[in-house]
């Protein structure tokens, strides 16, 4: 470990340090809220700066196990944003329920370091451990409301299935190591290029390894038919955690996919792209169809997040079929989805500031009257999730669809079908998103309730999420440049 290694991995290290720092703060001033928030948010700001600074130039450390490139920087920023939003939105939910903010923040920061490490991993072993570092805190967070049966039930389901999938993933990983003789991503890619070019055959063992790894990853992104954990874990988790779970581990898992499938397994894309197409089809359709029948908004958003995974997979499929735009769309989608979905969950969390408020649809009845601003913001986020311009969700969806259409015109007709199914799904999705709007504006509230009061923190967070949701929709240019840079870091399909 050299000094330059440390400098290169500074954001990650800072993340770990920040978690420790919060721990220390909590030990010094137990139960205090503001110091924790100040340290956490300040620290995140520092990490942001570090990320941007270190991201100026591509670099590697630890003999290639840690890679910094455009993708790393982009994903790190997304993760930091997700965590910052989650921390901002959490107190309004946690405090009325007597849950400490400090442990929450610490665990969350650990999860963030895991996700950041995934985006920087240049080695499969690092990748695996980073993945575990990301998901283990997730299990803990899901069960964070430990006195609540739903929270712990969600947690144990999430944990058991997550561990199961980790084992599967690891088993596959082992076989890939064994057959390629290396744990380095670039090394594996080299070996596989040889196989793809025909100089060596793709052995059954390697195929088995790939299958197991695909399964494990598909589980992490909640692709159908490996999605079962999502609704239960999301519904059960404390709302800010649900918000985090729906975007953090998802983007993290996609980062894993990018590093693994795009980085290491790209030579075999003609094999896995078909799997991705099938997964995308199933994921979109099932997510949306089941979401149609939900009466609990959190559970509904859980299914919707499955559907959004499907849309992101469309981008991946397009990339696999040879379109760089697929990758860009996927990344853009990730960022846009994070902003809008966190916003939506933030509104739910804000409503649940009053303990005892469920996330059932009835909670939203007459919200537009009771809480006009929350109603407007929720509407905006839901419209964005639906994909109505001029919001982030629209442009993101348009982006992946564009990629799919391009791929289909380049000869892969299945991608065309995928694009059409995607838009039909989007139309169906409008039904359940708009149903919430129906409740908010077109139903009378059940009984009068005094208006809620929220701190500046919550409003500031919501304002930021709103701004991003609109900004990514109206002026995608800035983010677009970053995304294209990030996608280029992995390499364009033409070059590979």
């Amino acid at each position, binding site marked *: 470990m050299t000094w330059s290694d440390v400098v290169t991995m500074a954001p990650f290290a800072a993340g770990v340090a920040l978690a420790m720092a919060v721990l220390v703060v909590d030990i010094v001033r137990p139960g205090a809220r503001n110091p924790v928030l100040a340290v956490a948010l300040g620290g995140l700001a520092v990490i942001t700066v570090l990320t941007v600074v270190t991201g100026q130039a591509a670099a590697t450390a630890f003999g290639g196990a840690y890679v910094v490139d455009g993708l790393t920087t982009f994903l790190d920023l997304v993760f930091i944003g997700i965590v910052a939003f989650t921390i901002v939105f959490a107190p309004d939910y946690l405090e009325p329920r007597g849950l400490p903010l400090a442990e929450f923040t610490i665990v969350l920061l650990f999860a963030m370091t895991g996700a950041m490490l995934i985006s920087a991993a240049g080695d499969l072993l690092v990748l695996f451990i980073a993945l575990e570092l990301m998901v283990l805190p997730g299990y803990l967070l899901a069960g964070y409301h430990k006195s609540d049966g739903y929270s712990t039930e969600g947690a*144990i*389901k999430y944990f*058991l*299935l997550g561990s*199961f*999938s980790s084992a*599967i993933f690891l088993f596959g990983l082992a076989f890939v190591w064994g057959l390629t003789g290396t744990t380095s991503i670039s090394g594996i890619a080299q070996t596989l290029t040889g196989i793809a070019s025909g100089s060596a055959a*793709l*052995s*059954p063992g390697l*195929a*088995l390894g*790939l*299958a*197991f790894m*695909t*399964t494990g990853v*598909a*589980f992490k992104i909640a692709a159908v*038919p*490996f999605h*079962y*954990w999502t*609704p*239960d874990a999301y519904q059960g988790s404390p709302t800010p955690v649900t918000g985090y779970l729906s975007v953090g581990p998802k983007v993290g898992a996609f980062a894993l996919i990018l590093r693994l499938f795009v980085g290491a397994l790209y030579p075999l894309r003609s*094999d896995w792209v*078909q*799997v991705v197409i099938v997964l995308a089809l199933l994921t979109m359709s*099932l997510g*949306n*169809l*089941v*979401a*149609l*029948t*939900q009466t609990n908004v959190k559970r509904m958003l859980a299914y919707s997040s499955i559907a959004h995974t499907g849309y992101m997979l469309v981008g991946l499929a397009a990339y696999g079929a040879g379109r760089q735009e697929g990758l860009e769309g996927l990344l853009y989608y990730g960022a846009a989805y994070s902003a809008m979905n966190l916003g939506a969950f933030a509104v739910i969390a804000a409503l649940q500031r009053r303990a005892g408020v469920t996330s059932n649809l009835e909670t939203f009845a007459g919200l537009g009257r009771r809480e006009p601003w929350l109603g407007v913001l929720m509407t905006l986020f839901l419209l964005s999730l639906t994909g109505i311009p001029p919001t982030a969700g629209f442009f993101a969806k348009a982006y992946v669809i564009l990629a799919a259409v391009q791929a289909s015109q380049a000869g892969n007709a299945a991608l065309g079908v995928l694009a059409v199914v995607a838009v039909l799904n989007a139309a*169906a999705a409008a039904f359940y998103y708009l149903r919430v709007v129906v409740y908010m504006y077109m139903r009378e509230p059940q009984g009068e309730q005094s208006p809620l009061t929220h701190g500046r923190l919550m409003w500031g967070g919501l304002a930021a999420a709103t701004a991003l949701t609109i900004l990514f929709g109206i002026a995608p240019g800035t983010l677009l440049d970053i995304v294209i840079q990030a996608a280029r870091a992995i390499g364009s399909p033409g070059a590979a």
Partner: protein
Amino acid sequence: MSYDLLVPLIVALPLAGFVITAAIGKRLGRQAHWIPVGAVVISWLVAMVVVAAALTNAEPFGEAGFGVTLWQWIPAHGAAGSPDFIISAGFFVDHLSAVLLIVVTTIGMLVHVYSIGYMGHDPGYWRFFAYLNLFMVSMLILVLADSWLVLFVAWELVGLCSYLLIGFWYRKNSAALASKKAFIVNRVGDVGFALGIMAIFANTHTLNIRDSLGVLSSQTLVAFPVPVAIVALLVFAGAVGKSAQFPLHVWLPDAMEGPTPVSALIHAATMVNAGVYMVARANPLFAAAPEVMTFVAAIGIFTAILAASIAMTQTDIKRVLAYSTLSQLGYMFASLGVGAFSAAIFHLMTHGFFKGLLFLGSGSVIHAVHEEQDMRKMGGLAKKIPHTYWTMLIGAIAISGIPPLAGFFSKDEILGEAFKTGFYWVWAIGIVVAVMTAFYMFRLIGLTFWGESRVDKAVEPKIHESPRVMTVPLWLLAIPSLVLGAILSWPGPPLGPLFGQSGQTGLLAGWLEPVFKGAQEALGRSEAEFQLLGIDGGLLLISIAVAVAGLLVAWRLFGVDLGPIRGKAEPERVRALTARVPGLYRASVNKWWFDDLNHVLFVVIGGWVANGSAWFDRNIVDGIVNGIGSVTRRAGTDLARIQTGRVQNYALGIALGLLVMAGSYLVIVAR
């Protein structure tokens, strides 16, 4: 004043009257008639100036007529090879329009004046005059139009006015129904007319009436996109609707729900003649399609006898007159069909006056007996309302074709032309109709004016003659009914030179000769010398004889009270006669069941189709839409079932997914 201004002024005056009355008429109350009536009177004066100039071929009219372009109405330019569709709103006055102007403005004016009295107590007084003025506007545009499309506009506008006026007493359900029926049935014909206009445009690339007719009749070797016969048929469809010919005749009797002046003006004297006018106007087109002309004649003469047969048994005084109108219009179409265009216009004119007279008279009668229209509740009115009686009697004689009244000349000319052009069947049926006409008219007179009074005892003492404002127009109409026929058919001096004519034909025929010349030539008709002692005389005698025969039969059955000639009505004999031909009688009373047929066709079957469509829309079209929705939701519910809440089930699902995944990868490898 230049004719550029005068011609539009004819239309503009009533238009102004309409606008002003519509805007402020309500506030004028009982004085609301001044503006509209004044407008029509001035309009009449202007029209007469124009007519005089036109018929004397004065500058700028000449023989060909004179047109005024107001503005470019529809400038729809073509593109990519299609022709320009540029329609100018403009007027055109030639001899034919001039003749029609006489009828329209004169009768229109008289009806306006008459209405002052007739509608005097109606709360919708101002409204009535506004509508009447609007009608005048429309009818004058119709007569003056120089473009097919402008003609069509007026065609529809008169339909609108007819609708408004029939339904004038809108609180009466029957009136509301009748007005709607009139409009819709007219629309049926209008569709044909509209398509005809489109066909004309497709063929000639112009909708100027003269230009297009010139092209259509030019017999060019270039095949038209639409055969001329089809064009003629389509245009004729419009005439059938507007002039209430079979099978679109059903609306006219119902239209009697409107106030009587309306029946006189619109449904007897002017609007229903529009079809005749239009076919006459389009004579070159019809001349280019002789087979269609035969069809026109057949429709016309069939309508004539059909309507006459119904008129014989109706008891509502206005309905009798309505069927009579149908019948007479049938004559006119028969005349057009056999190529006797000027005879048709002749009959149009005379009929306009005497039928207008009859209707106004019937209005006066109805007024007298307190809005009773059933002739069975009249009788013996001759003494009580003498002006009405005498004028109506003149009208009845005129329509029956008794010389020397107007109807005789025109009807005889029609029958004579039919015979001479070889349409013997038209002639034969026409003769039968003539008998029937005389019969039902004197049945009407007999039931209404002669014999014992059957008037309601409560009303009986209150019967009174109508005010001067109503009787004067009656007499003013009676005069032309008496003499117009003779005047217009007068072949030589002194009338001819007065109007710039010198020919051997009648005055009217002379006027119209330039209009119909081309068609006559195309049909190979030549104007034969009138042979009083030859064939014409013979036909003439037959006409007179049958008219008299009908008249006598009516007298015999329904009585007569004409000074020396007296006879009592014999209801038993009537009953016995009808009992002898029960089928025919019932058919006549029930109007040959046309209303029932229409009910079945349009209300029952049409309703079935419409309801079927609505059912299809709701259950199939919308059903599929909603079905997709519910199938989707059902799929969602079913799929949600795999989310059992049990981790092991989930794990099994994942394991199965893993197996499939691994299996498929292995399959990929194996390939």
